[in-house]
């Protein structure tokens, strides 16, 4: 039976290991053909920003991996609108994440869904399994 899995991401990248660990688990989980969603709330929205360059801090730049999520059928990426606004960010500050819909001749579609806190609370309510990072 396919279950609805949601990964909740609340931490900024690099300062702690949570963001990278979440991404690793998402990629592993993607092999199990479940209905996967990701939510980015609070400082978690910083994980998706454009222009990250980690050369000078000697850590792996894993921000490019989010681009590949669409290829693993991870294409429901919820970003909380209020969290972006509190941080002075807009959708333009985030990477443009896309996936290809095989039911529509591989049409390219946006993976990011900008949702309000109230809308996200409804999405959370529908899940079978919640994993928090």
């Amino acid at each position, binding site marked *: 039976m396919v279950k609805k899995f949601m990964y909740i991401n609340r931490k900024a*990248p*690099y*300062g702690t290991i949570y963001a990278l660990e979440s991404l690793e688990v998402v990629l592993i989980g993607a092999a199990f053909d479940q209905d996967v969603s990701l939510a980015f709330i609070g400082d978690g929205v910083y994980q998706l*920003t454009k222009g*990250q360059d*980690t050369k000078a*801090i000697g850590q792996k730049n894993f921000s490019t991996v989010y681009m590949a999520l669409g290829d693993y059928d991870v294409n429901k990426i919820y970003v909380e609108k209020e969290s972006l606004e509190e941080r*002075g960010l807009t959708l333009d500050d985030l990477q443009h994440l896309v996936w290809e819909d095989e039911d529509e001749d591989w049409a390219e579609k946006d993976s990011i869904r900008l949702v309000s806190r109230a809308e996200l609370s409804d999405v959370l309510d529908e899940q079978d399994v919640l994993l928090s990072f």
Partner: protein
Amino acid sequence: MSLLHTVNKSPFESNTFDACLGLAKSGSTILLIEDGVYAATTGNSVADKIKNTTGINFCVLGPDAQARGIQGKLAEGIKVVDYEGFVDLVAEHDAVQAWL
């Protein structure tokens, strides 16, 4: 006597930045490092706190800002320093208070 304060936590995740701001005296330096650098970006809900604070020298560690992709979004008046600049700041101040 002047102190160098370092803040390494996001202002949205902890009250470290506020605690530092409350105790930093005029003439001291606050260096934002690691996730602390997010406090230095424009248009966020803490930007006014830096803007309304006078007499404190605000710096941000360039490599940490660059890693997080915010080097183009830093608020006016915030100085960017590299690792050598960090060492210089330590040498120039009488003591370092690392807010964790």
